């Protein structure tokens, strides 16, 4: 039997989540079916997830799908980084500057990077978002860099 690489990875992922949940729930009381403890349902689900993970790993896929894994690292990393930067910088720099950074970083996702367009776009987005969310919708967030 031929093992499909994508399914093997998927199955391993599910099983890993199952094991993780099992470990995390290990100190929770299981109880009995008539009087379930906090750990009962999580454990049942973990075992099911591990079981289905194994099942997924050894199934074949119908032909025609993606044969190989192509991961678009560039958008994946730049967008994730931009999001993380937003979370880290917001309390320090305030929303305007944070959004500038976020936009500039997220734009790296595309190979054709234009500084001029990025600059104009970032300023527009930062101003608009700050206006709409802070003043228009009243979202509580720091506007300016924290001093000191």
């Amino acid at each position, binding site marked *: 039997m031929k093992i499909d690489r994508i399914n093997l990875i998927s199955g391993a992922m599910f099983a890993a989540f199952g094991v993780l*949940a099992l470990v995390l729930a290990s100190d929770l009381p299981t109880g009995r079916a*008539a009087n379930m403890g906090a750990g009962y349902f999580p454990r049942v689900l973990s075992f099911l997830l591990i079981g289905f993970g194994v099942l997924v790993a050894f199934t074949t896929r119908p032909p025609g799908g993606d044969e190989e894994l192509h991961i678009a690292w560039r958008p994946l990393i730049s967008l994730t980084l931009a999001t993380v930067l937003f979370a880290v910088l917001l309390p320090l720099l305030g929303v305007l500057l944070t959004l500038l950074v*976020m936009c500039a970083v997220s734009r790296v996702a*595309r190979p054709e990077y234009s500084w001029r*367009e990025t600059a104009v776009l970032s300023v527009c987005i930062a101003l608009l978002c700050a206006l709409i969310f802070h003043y228009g919708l009243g979202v509580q967030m720091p506007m300016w860099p924290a001093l000191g």
Partner: protein
Amino acid sequence: MELLNNLSLGFSVALSIKNVLYCFLGALIGTLVGVLPGLGPVATIALLLPLTYSLEPTTALIMLAGIYYGAQYGGSTTAILVNLPGETSSVVTAIDGYQMARRGRAGTALLTAALGSFFAGTVGTLLIAAFAPPLAKLALTFGPAEYFALMVVGLIAAVVMARGSIIKAIAMVILGLLLGLVGTDVQSGAERLTLGIPELMDGIDFVVVAMGLFGIAEIIKNLESREEQREVFTGGKQKLKLWNFTREDFRLAWPATLRGTALGSALGILPGGGAVLGSFASYMLEKKIARDPSRFGNGAIEGVAGPESANNAGAQTSFIPMLTLGLPANAIMAIMVGALTIHNIQPGPQIMSSNPSLFWGLIASMWVGNLLLVILNLPLIGIWVKLLSVKYRILYPAILAICAIGVYSVSNSTFLVLLMAVFGVLGYAFSKLGCEPAPLLLGFVLGPMMEEYLRRALTLSRGDPTVFVTRPLSAALLAVAVVMLVAMMAPMWARRREEAFQED
């Protein structure tokens, strides 16, 4: 008559100035989302959810529902004009709608879609009004075992509807259920699966999961492929002719609309249903019964009228299980359940009696919203077309910024933004591995409820698991789930056998 009384209560709520305004706003945002690529209704509704906290629950739900059917509408506009179905439910509309547009009949196609949708929406609204009360009455007799069985049906339905491997979809549901359990256990107060992170004590926020899986992951996926050239057909250089509707068109379109409405309504009620299934079924039906099937794919008006009516009818009737049983049939309904819970309204059969103005107001507002869409959007088509020329490289940083701020605003916490980034990466991994995120989201919403009902059912039966098959209603529901699964697995086995034979 009770039906009329209920509807008049509904309209008195839906027609208040504030509710009409939010209904319009929702429909408008929905259309925008449907037109623009890269932001689906699930992510949009999740995004706007925190902003509706301050609204009255009825108004909030009216607006969120407006986004749903507005997106449907916008999706078909782009399907017809640029062969780019904005939503899955309008994939089949693109086949003949786009061909009509290429033949200079874009206006006719758009008008057919609009009027068909409106007709279907009207029927759908009436159906909800007629069928919801008896269903809710039935649901009130449900005990915990029945509810548990019902949720199993809902989850299995989500699995069956998912594209790709069934086993993967089941695994996704289980993973979703587990994620839903993160946080403090309601009964014992024990912290579960929190990794010791204090922010996770109240559980993972629904918005974070939806935004990560359906927002961020979607953007990454869209950026993978190069920006495609889009060709907009509005009938050449001349203006879009909307009223270019011949008697022949009408003769062909109206029976298709009727059939599409019937099919869409029926399939929308099923758990796991919604707008998508109906539109595909309707297209196949129209093609099958047409006197000359070769016209399909070459701009047959029935191929627009049928599926468009079906998807709108389905979008409407998929509210029935959510409103009467508290069971979300698809990812969007899962968000609606989330919205209700946030406003401290327990979704389920008791809504209708405890909160009649919300229930009937929402239903009436769907009709109002559909009417608004027809009246306002036909003249606005020019603007939507212009929006299509906005490049994605301009659009996505803005979407990302809105996602981040939206998630932050849920509880003014940057931790949620980080968590969203994690779910974004996960979502991208899921899509690469061929695992659909929708079943996970449903499991996530149903997880805590399911555990609760399982606990209660087994406590009542003193730990005897046969309670699920000895109570007739619960047994029947579970049988439905099994039949659905087997029906889906059967062709898979058949194909597997075929492959095995070919290798000999």
